């Protein structure tokens, strides 16, 4: 099989999977069958394109094949299928007018319906919208494949049985529903940004999927500022992805990264989106987080970062989101940069009694770094040991182990 065909199918998979599945689901009114036919169309493409060449419009070709297959199955299994619950997809409730009635949007809103649990929403979105295999989704969330398969099946069953509609929600429900979608996209991105465990620091398949989803949502809902803000946040973080690992495969902290390797085009795009989102008040949580990322992106160096601005933005974020100890932790880290390690340590103090952070490795790691910079070697050793015990990602573990060795050296020397 030639490489060009494999590459063409892979590229169509990234670009067209959601469209093919979403359009096929409109015909089958059954997500399982739509998924099967979509998978089948991509398998066909590998064979047929090798023989007769890649078609001019691969997406249209794939949709055609998937829908033909669906029609065959529907005809053959007509009697059996009459007893199955069908997706509710009538269009009697018109969507909000500034929204394009796009099949992919229907699919996204259905997968991210608040009637489904958060884990189920993430799993369904990755499987049905992004086209990841069940095994890949399972690997991202550290569960056995059979567990993930059961989770996806249960979610699809609830969609059919409780009649979660295959539809873009109406204007009165849109705000809440967009929020639920953005939460899923953000969670997929953060999971890809630093994998919770395993040998790789990043899972580019996951962060790439989140960026594509955010781009699609922005394309279809250009006037939603929360969507623009989330896309800005993802792009500003994605711009730094390449430089988070050194050529030696080791972790590079923000302070150590080669800023010339940051993606200037993504930064410019993210900053422009953010400026648009900030023009409308009040800014969303994602807009503030994107603003923090933008301050980093625009700083010529670590030392010249505007830490005062970063602390101020975290203060705004904490006011919007008072329950989040992680925001308080990040603010404390920024205070440590603005006012020195002792001030940072003092700001971390109240968090040490926070049960939600009891097993949060970044709290121990942040504390360890301040103690190291203060030369409090014994306490730093304990904090690094703690962080190491709580970290599952191997690249992060290697970094922490190196720092631990360094402070231990001071202790004995």
């Amino acid at each position, binding site marked *: 099989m030639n490489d060009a065909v494999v590459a063409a199918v892979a590229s169509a998979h990234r670009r067209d999977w959601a469209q093919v599945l979403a359009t096929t689901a409109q015909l089958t009114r059954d997500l399982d069958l739509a998924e099967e036919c979509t998978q089948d169309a991509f398998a066909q493409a590998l064979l047929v394109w090798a023989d007769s060449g890649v078609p001019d419009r691969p997406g249209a070709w794939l949709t055609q094949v998937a829908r033909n297959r669906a029609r065959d199955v529907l005809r053959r299994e007509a009697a059996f299928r009459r*007893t199955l619950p069908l997706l*509710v997809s009538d269009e009697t409730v018109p969507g909000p007018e500034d929204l394009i009635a796009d099949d992919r949007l229907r699919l996204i809103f259905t997968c991210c319906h608040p*009637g489904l649990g958060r884990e189920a929403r993430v799993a369904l979105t990755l499987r049905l919208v992004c086209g990841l295999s069940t095994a890949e989704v399972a690997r991202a969330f550290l569960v056995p494949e059979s567990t993930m398969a059961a989770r996806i099946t249960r979610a699809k069953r609830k969609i059919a*049985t*409780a*009649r979660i*509609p295959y*539809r873009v*929600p109406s204007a009165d*429900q849109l705000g809440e529903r967009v929020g639920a979608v953005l939460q899923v996209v953000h969670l997929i991105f953060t999971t890809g940004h630093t994998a919770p465990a395993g040998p790789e620091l990043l899972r580019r398949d996951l962060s790439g999927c989140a960026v594509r989803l955010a781009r699609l949502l922005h394309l279809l809902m250009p006037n939603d500022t929360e969507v623009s803000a989330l896309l800005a946040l993802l792009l500003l973080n994605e711009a730094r992805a390449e430089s988070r690992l050194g050529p030696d495969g080791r972790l590079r902290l923000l302070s150590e990264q080669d800023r010339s390797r940051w993606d200037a085009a993504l930064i410019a795009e993210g900053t422009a989106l953010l400026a648009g989102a900030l023009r409308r008040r009040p800014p969303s949580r994602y807009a503030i987080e994107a603003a923090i990322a933008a301050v980093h992106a625009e700083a010529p160096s670590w030392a010249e970062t505007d830490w005062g601005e970063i602390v101020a933005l975290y203060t705004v974020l904490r006011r919007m989101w008072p329950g989040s100890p992680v925001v308080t932790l990040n603010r404390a880290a920024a205070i440590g940069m603005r006012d020195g390690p002792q001030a940072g340590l003092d700001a971390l103090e109240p968090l040490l009694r926070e049960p939600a952070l009891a097993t949060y490795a970044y709290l121990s790691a942040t504390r360890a770094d301040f103690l190291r910079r203060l030369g409090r070697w014994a306490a730093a050793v304990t904090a690094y040991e703690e962080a190491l015990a709580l970290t599952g990602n191997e690249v992060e573990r290697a970094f922490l182990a190196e720092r631990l060795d360094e402070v231990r050296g001071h202790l004995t020397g």
Partner: protein
Amino acid sequence: MAKYMLLIYGDAARWDAMTPAERNAHDAAHQAFSEAAGARVLGGEELESAPTATTVRGDGAGELITTDGPFLDTKEALGGFYLIEAADLDEVTRLAALLPEVRAEHSAVEIRPVVFHG
């Protein structure tokens, strides 16, 4: 169209403690719900409190055992129900959101699809 059961759960002590004015507002909200839902309401009742319940079960050997109290003895009790006909979960959720029990922090409305037997 499909049928859904709306099960209204809450803390009975808090319901009993409503002032007459609160009770009136509560009843008015149920009235508003019934008007909004119209013919989609197939039935619905407020239930007497859980301590008035009687539970009947078998002892496994063919004998009946009758006990005082509800099947599930919890602080939050089933206080009432509606049987609704709706196109989909979004429609029934929009209707359920009109019920006053959704607003009070001690109570909530559970939406259960009814099995379709053809």
